[in-house]
């Protein structure tokens, strides 16, 4: 099923709704005016569930912001240092998990040194573990912990953590997530602060997250390059930072699907592992659910204006 088919269905549904509205205006108005909201919940459930069960997907066309994120990682050379700030938790895994997986896959393919950390939530380290287990250990078993990647875990203190580690990472990170001294981790030996990172990749679900990385790392230290992926709620607030303080941004699951395409087009196999297509898979329900919302907005406006007209009469 492609986008043309989806639009055809939308036009047919909207057209049929309009015919019903025009021909049986009075009955439709009365039925919709007192419609139990639970019918809308049920419709939304079906709009999301049916595409999931049918594994409905649509083609993606990457936009400029996704390309900007991809290009910033492409500019790096093997062995360059990347700070992977995974500032999200299971509550936002649905939106941010696919882009976190794609970021890790891209960095592994490029041969970059990955420094994982989180300042958002105590369950952030589990999100890092997911990326390590499902991508690095599963598909890049030759990469060695402490040499190619490290999990520095969670530190409380929000932007205070960023303020400290931009000048001295050892002040806060004395051990990694597993309690091993950072002095015994080869890839940490020559790292004094995060200004030495060639790129910061932030996957953010709220406070502390992208805004704090922009304000306390990328802005006072313009040599630090920052790209990010954020939830849909956060995305509109981050646009003013592009491109000076933030080089690229993946907004919600749509951004993840676009970035996945860019990464898989360059580095993927002919038949990529389904775990690298999660963003694309979750765009199927998005399209159908958005169509439903468009229809509901039209119907709600009909009820509103019809009610106004009756009040005047």
């Amino acid at each position: 099923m492609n986008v043309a088919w989806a639009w055809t269905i939308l036009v047919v549904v909207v057209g049929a709704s309009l015919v019903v509205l025009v021909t049986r205006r009075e009955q439709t108005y009365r039925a919709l005016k007192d419609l139990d909201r639970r019918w809308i919940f049920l419709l939304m459930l079906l709009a999301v569930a049916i595409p999931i069960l049918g594994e409905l997907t649509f083609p993606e066309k990457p936009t400029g912001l996704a390309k900007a994120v991809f290009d910033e990682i492409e500019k790096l050379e093997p062995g360059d240092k990347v700070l992977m700030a995974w500032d999200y938790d299971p509550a936002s895994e649905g939106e941010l998990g696919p882009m976190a997986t794609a970021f890790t896959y891209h960095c592994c393919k490029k041969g970059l040194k990955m420094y994982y950390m989180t300042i958002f939530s105590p369950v952030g380290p589990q999100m890092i573990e997911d990326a390590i287990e499902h991508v690095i250990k599963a598909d890049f078993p030759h990469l060695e912990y402490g040499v190619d990647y490290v999990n520095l875990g969670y530190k409380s203190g929000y932007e205070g953590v960023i303020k400290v580690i931009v000048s001295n990472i050892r002040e806060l990170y004395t051990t990694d997530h597993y309690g091993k001294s950072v002095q015994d981790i080869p890839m940490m030996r020559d790292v004094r602060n995060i200004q030495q990172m060639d790129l910061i990749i932030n996957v953010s679900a709220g406070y502390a997250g992208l805004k704090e990385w922009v304000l306390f790392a990328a802005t006072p230290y313009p040599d630090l390059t920052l790209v990010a992926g954020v939830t849909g709620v956060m995305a509109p607030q981050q646009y003013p930072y592009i491109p000076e303080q933030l080089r690229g941004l993946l907004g919600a699951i749509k951004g993840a699907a676009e970035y996945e395409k860019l990464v898989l087009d360059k580095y993927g196999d002919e038949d990529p592992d389904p775990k690298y297509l999660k963003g694309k898979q979750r765009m199927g329900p998005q399209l159908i659910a958005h169509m439903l919302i468009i229809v509901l907005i039209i119907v709600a406006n009909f009820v509103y204006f019809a009610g106004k007209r009756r009040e005047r009469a």
Partner: protein
Amino acid sequence: MDRKTLIWTIVFLLAGAYLVLRSMTGGMARTYMKAVDFEFVNVAADGDEPEWIQAKPQVAADHDPNELANYPDENRQSWTRYESAPLKKYAKAVKEDPNQTTYLLSISRTIGVWLSAMFTLAIFSFLYKDSIFYKIAEAVVVGVSAAYWMVVAFWSTIVPNLIGKLSPAIVQAWAMPGLKEEQNLLYIVPLVLGAMLLWQLAPKGGWISRWPLAFFIGVFCGIRLTGYMHGDFLYQIGNSIIPLVVMVNGSFDFWGSLRAVLLVGGLLVCLVYFFFSFEHKGIVGKTAKVGIWVLMITFGAGFGYTVMGRIALLAIRLEFLFDDWLWLMDPTDKRLGM
């Protein structure tokens, strides 16, 4: 029993019977694991610092497996780690050797999947109406989260960053043998401030907790003020002062110019809307009205993004219910016969 209650009772009974049947026949929610044996061998001579070399699951590079096999049992440390495994691999292993012990059915993880599914449905039940199931799930989430935050903050911050700085030897002996820190008595200051903060729990002397609180508020205000002034205020003024006519390689860029005009124009009309020193009449009123439109378009874009986010969250819960719990789909090819 009225008609509505009867219908719901029948729906719940049918759903329950379906779940019992599916779970009894092994057709849903089961989780499997793989037992991975780890073994390390101490190759150091007696009296020297221990030198642990990995022998299992794979031998460390530059070491001979036969040589490591010669060391006595007292030089060995071993344990088993259980990793998630797909049904596909479990079925293959059982087919090859019915008595194998590498791949196992995980009872605890299977119960976890059931609990997770039940809590998801309990939260969803709120969409129908507020219920005891929703209340229980909500209370469990709040309680577990609070306890989890406390435990993680204790082990990730207080142990390595406070006790570990004040007395590294105690932390090394008690909790983190890998910690290699030197004593730093300056950390007595945060220890005292922390203790003072907890004083508000005492029956008397609650005012003591206000001093560290004042310190923290002052510090955070300072940090945030400078950050926001620099990154949000000054930088955003700089980002808004842009040429309205954009030239690329000596030629006029129509779309770039239009974008710049919209950005600067939108900013100015929004500023006019929030400017209350003049009455919103005449040209000021008309400009402010355009400002409202720009704001409405911005809120609409924000609403669209929010809807996208919420649908993604619903999608992942349904994916979990259909894939991990009910086994109605298999997008990652984990199971047989789907």
